[in-house]
């Protein structure tokens, strides 16, 4: 197993194919990141909503 490129610069350009390869990599990373982040945000929002509801009902009980 050897490093296939002579320099970092060559790794980026890849003999003219760099644009295609790195576009594919970046878009894949973005989509996969979204698949992880979006459910985490949903979970956090759901838990926050539940906590807020509990706090609200507790407050209204104190008032009455």
């Amino acid at each position, binding site marked *: *197993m*050897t*490093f*296939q*490129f002579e320099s970092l610069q060559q*790794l980026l350009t*890849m*003999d*003219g*194919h*760099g644009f*295609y*390869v790195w*576009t*594919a*990599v970046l*878009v*894949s990373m973005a*989509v*996969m990141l*979204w*698949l*992880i982040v979006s*459910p*985490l945000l*949903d*979970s956090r929002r*759901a*838990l*926050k*909503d*539940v*906590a807020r*509801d*509990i706090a609200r009902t507790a407050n209204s009980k104190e008032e009455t």
Partner: protein
Amino acid sequence: MNWLSNLSPSWQWFHRLGSPRWFYQTTGRWLPWLSLLAFTLLSAGLVWGLAFAPQDAKQGNSFRIIYLHVPASFLALAGYYIMAIAGAVGLIWKMKLSYMLMKSAAPIGAALTFLALFTGAVWGKPTWGTYWVWDARVTSMLILLFLYLGVLALQYAFHSNDAGNKASAILALVGTVNIPIIYKSVDWWYTLHQPATIKFTSAPSMHPDMFQPLLVMILGFYCFYTVALFLFTRAEILCRERKSVWVKELAMAREQS
């Protein structure tokens, strides 16, 4: 049903498996390890594939997109089966959790199908000189995307969660009939695309130095898919079970920390 689970202990796991709370707690324990495994496999495979695998004699460096394209296509197809099986389990055993898994599998599958199409198009430009070719496999991938979008659209069209779940489970099962045709279409309308590069029945036709990083990437994508499926399902569980005591306790504990 109680005597039944006492009668045969092997049924107990099945009942527990149907409990969203059990699922939430168990996957909570698994997720750190699974995420670590997915991250390690994906980064190792990607670096190996992009920088260390030998370049293809004909396609040069553009072939390196294979390390994203093939795993994404695998999971896009496998994800449809996972979705359909989860839907079928839901319909047969009326398991709530199973519907939640099905509902979570749809956006993940659609995203991966999009990814397979996108990386294929970007790969096509340097290889065939065009981004889009109406070739059998590209077309069947596009049909797969439409099938996913149909399931998603149907799911959200119903006001009642229950009806939406059952309806999209049926649609997913009907769509599964289409998947063998997608595979067959590779033989029927083979035009521009390369033949299937990996056949598990015979030895890989790729050079081992190219094939090994691909295998790592495929494993990494499977782990990633599982992580994403767990995360989506956990979000769905929290949303649906927000009235239950354990979710309330969880929310309070989180608020205090």
